[in-house]
């Protein structure tokens, strides 16, 4: 559901593409813009500043801001935008050179300070910017964080952090600076296309509150008026934009909907030109109704059922395998989602380099094998199995189907615990208090298969919620990081995937599918496989259809 995984990062293609993309941004003069107003369904954003964003924010931010790099609309490859070049000799100290002809909407030049000051602001702990962790790999980040001062005696004033600026950020001149990372990371330049790395105008840093309402960006569009909370955001073409593509529509209206069903209803009523994400229950109907006007593409969101390995009932591998084998994924997808997902064949997105179809032998429905494995493991001893999901997001239905399957094929009765609101649900997971299988999702931070392995399954993985720990896998990850080439690295990660699908710390369920619909008035629909619909490139048949 929209906005449910707010801090989703959607960045960049593979690291190899980066070096090739040195300097190829020169603009061929654009054909006259198509004009008109396109109306886009959206939802209320967390903020319109690069430091505090979620997916609805990013939709807007990508039209009014421009980052160092962007992803090509055709192949998703990383190309430079504001950056002239991003280079490094040791993958540890990166030199960023900027083009000098970009300006903020208020006339300020986009220069090295715009990046350095902005990034320092976001990283500085007391500013409480949720995007702060994105700068965590830069030297000196931890000096900007304050210690948690609260003891048992009561709240105390947090001490000032040691520094206000990261020592790893150094200005060379107005249009170049260096970034020093704590650990070498060959993929770092790919991450800076993410909206958290967008530059900040001076005026914006001086008045963040005002700038959140009326953003001062540096992108092809600029805000008209200010953010009308819970109602909409309107952006208009920025005539001073120095970038290559000038943007097609004159105006983009983002209309804010609180519920996806309401937004979709408004699309059906002809109030929107673009609606991204048809409600699952209406997918089949929409497919028949809109045909050509529905755009479908595999997506990278991974849904899995985590298993609490900290619970004795799930310690036995064969039990976990049996549970996974007893799920008829395709039947669930067809019945509950009208076929809107692709059953998982492994734990890596089908869009990613290194994906292998059928990698997961335990993900194919095989009731007999499941039964046999469970018998070998000595049967199920945990009584009723409790299936967990957060409330109100429509997960209960498919989890129930999973439970029904177990009941039917393995004779394990189940109950659902799907009444926790999201915060409570996540907190329960973080505290490792799930008493049974739990639903979670995962979106890639960058388009490199590593993002599907390390955070989820390494012993120290930031989002390892099942408590899986396998030294063999940890070693493979280390080896992959030390690999000479990307291709070598992929092999190590594939071996790691093999371990995961054998041990089943999580039961892979499926990968998503985008289903975006558009009105009859839309002529050219442009889709970027990294960011989704590119609103700035959409043209209309009749630009004057909406006054």
């Amino acid at each position: 559901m929209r906005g449910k995984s707010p801090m989703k990062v959607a960045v960049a293609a593979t690291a190899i593409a980066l070096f090739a993309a040195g300097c190829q941004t020169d603009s061929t003069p654009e054909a006259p813009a198509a004009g008109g107003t396109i109306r886009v369904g959206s939802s209320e954003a967390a903020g319109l500043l690069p430091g505090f964003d979620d997916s609805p924010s990013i939709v807007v931010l990508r039209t009014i801001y421009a980052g160092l790099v962007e992803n090509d609309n055709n192949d998703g490859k990383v190309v430079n935008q504001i950056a002239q070049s991003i280079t490094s000799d040791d993958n540890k100290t990166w030199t960023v050179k900027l083009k000098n002809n970009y300006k903020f909407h208020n006339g300020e030049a986009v220069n090295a300070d715009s990046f350095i000051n902005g990034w320092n602001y976001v990283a500085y702990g007391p500013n409480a910017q949720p995007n702060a962790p994105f700068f965590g790999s830069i030297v000196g980040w931890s000096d900007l964080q304050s210690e948690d001062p609260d003891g048992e005696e009561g709240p105390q004033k947090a001490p000032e952090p040691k520094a206000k600026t990261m020592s790893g950020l150094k200005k060379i001149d107005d249009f170049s600076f260096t970034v020093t990372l704590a650990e070498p990371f060959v993929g770092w330049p790919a991450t800076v296309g993410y909206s958290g790395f967008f530059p900040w105008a001076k005026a914006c840093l001086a008045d963040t509150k005002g700038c959140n309402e009326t953003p001062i960006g540096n992108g092809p569009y600029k805000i008209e008026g200010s953010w009308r909370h819970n109602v909409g955001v309107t952006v208009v073409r920025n005539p001073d934009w120095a970038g290559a593509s000038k943007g097609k529509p004159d105006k983009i209206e983002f209309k804010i909907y609180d519920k996806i069903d309401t937004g979709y209803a408004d699309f059906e009523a002809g109030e929107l030109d673009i609606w991204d994400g048809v409600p699952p229950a209406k997918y089949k109907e929409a497919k028949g109704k809109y045909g050509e006007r529905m755009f479908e593409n595999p997506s990278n969101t991974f849904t899995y059922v985590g298993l609490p390995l900290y619970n004795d009932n799930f310690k036995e591998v064969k039990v976990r395998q049996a549970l996974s084998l007893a799920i008829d994924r395709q039947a669930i997808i067809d019945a509950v989602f009208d076929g809107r997902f692709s059953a998982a064949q492994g734990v890596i997105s089908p869009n990613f380099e290194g994906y292998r179809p059928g990698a997961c032998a335990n993900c194919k429905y095989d009731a007999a094998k499941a039964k046999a494995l469970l018998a070998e493991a000595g049967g199920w001893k945990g009584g009723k199995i409790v299936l967990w999901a957060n409330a109100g997001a429509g997960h209960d239905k498919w989890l129930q189907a999973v439970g029904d399957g177990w009941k039917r094929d393995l004779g394990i009765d189940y109950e659902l615990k799907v009444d926790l609101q999201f915060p409570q649900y996540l907190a329960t997971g973080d505290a490792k208090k799930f008493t049974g299988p739990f639903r979670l999702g995962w979106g890639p931070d960058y388009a490199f298969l590593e993002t599907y392995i390390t955070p989820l399954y390494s012993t120290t993985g930031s989002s390892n919620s099942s408590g899986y720990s396998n030294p063999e896998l940890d070693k493979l990850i280390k080896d992959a990081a030390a690999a000479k080439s990307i291709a070598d690295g992929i092999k190590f990660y594939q071996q790691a995937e093999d371990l995961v699908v054998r041990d089943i710390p999580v039961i892979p369920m499926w990968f998503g599918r985008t289903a975006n619909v558009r009105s009859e008035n839309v002529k050219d629909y442009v889709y970027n496989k990294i960011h989704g619909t590119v609103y700035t490139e959409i043209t209309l048949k009749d630009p004057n259809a909406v006054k």
Partner: protein
Amino acid sequence: MGRYIVRRLLQFIPTVLGTLFLLHYLTTVGIQLTGNPIRALFGDKRPAPETLAALTSRLHLDDPCLKQKGNPCLGLFRERLVDIGQLDFGTNFRFRPVFDWRGFFDRAHASIITDALPYTIKITIIAFTIEALVGVFIGMRAGMKPGKSLDYSVKISTVMVISVPVFVLGILIQQFITRDFGNFLRGQEWIPEVISRGVFGSAYKQEFPFASLIIPGIVLGMLSLATTARLTRTSVHENMRADYVRTAKAKGLTHKRVIGVHTLRNSLIPVATNLGLSIGGYMTGAIITETIFNVPGVGNQTARAIFQGEPAVLIGITTMLVLVYLVANLLVDLLYAVLDPRIRYE
């Protein structure tokens, strides 16, 4: 009269404090039992502990008592009261102020409540008008002829409205009326947009700030309409048998006047009380209705605050609602004295 009002206003204080504490306690226990709500901002991915701590501290949710189950967090409550006393209602998790009275006049000081309130006031007025006019009318007609077909059809249709859950009602209306019928209207050239896109639009529209609230208002009003109709019916039915109605007939007055003046005026006294109180009830309905029809009002914000577990927003909105309710109550009581001269407040 003046002294009565002052006494009533003084009674507001314990009620408001009590409600504030109730909500403070419930949200506090909620956090104690379920953990830091800010964690949810980061979704399925786990945030850096430093960042989580910084946000938590910034939003004043770092009080250690929030980790001790059952602790009423009186210190935190006192802090909140002091802040509220200074008209500082805190912010939501995105640092938007919950309430700033200047927001009514100046966009630069916009806040959640000042943004949302105008929509809710509008939708409430629509709902109230519908409830009062339609409810009283059909209740009156039914009450005049008890046991007749109209009485039963009113009874059955009001019961239908009561028994069908609001969200079903809202979704049915959205499907059949605003989408199917609305699309038909939108296909007709001659129908003005204010009707086809405004009144029969699927969601609230800025271009039609009033028209597009009519259907949500009707859905909202329908909930209490049933109660109003039934109450009017009972009240009219009882008053029809009152001695003074017989006197009015004996005075040779027309049937219309006997009903319209002598019966109705008396029957409306309990109905007016109920109408006043239903304004408070609209807030519950608004949580669902506003969400379904995408009205950016108080109900919508309440729903969001509940699901995000934002204590400051919940407490801020509740404070406002309690005051609205209490003032409405007071007005109803004063109105009572106007409607019924036998009542005097000392």
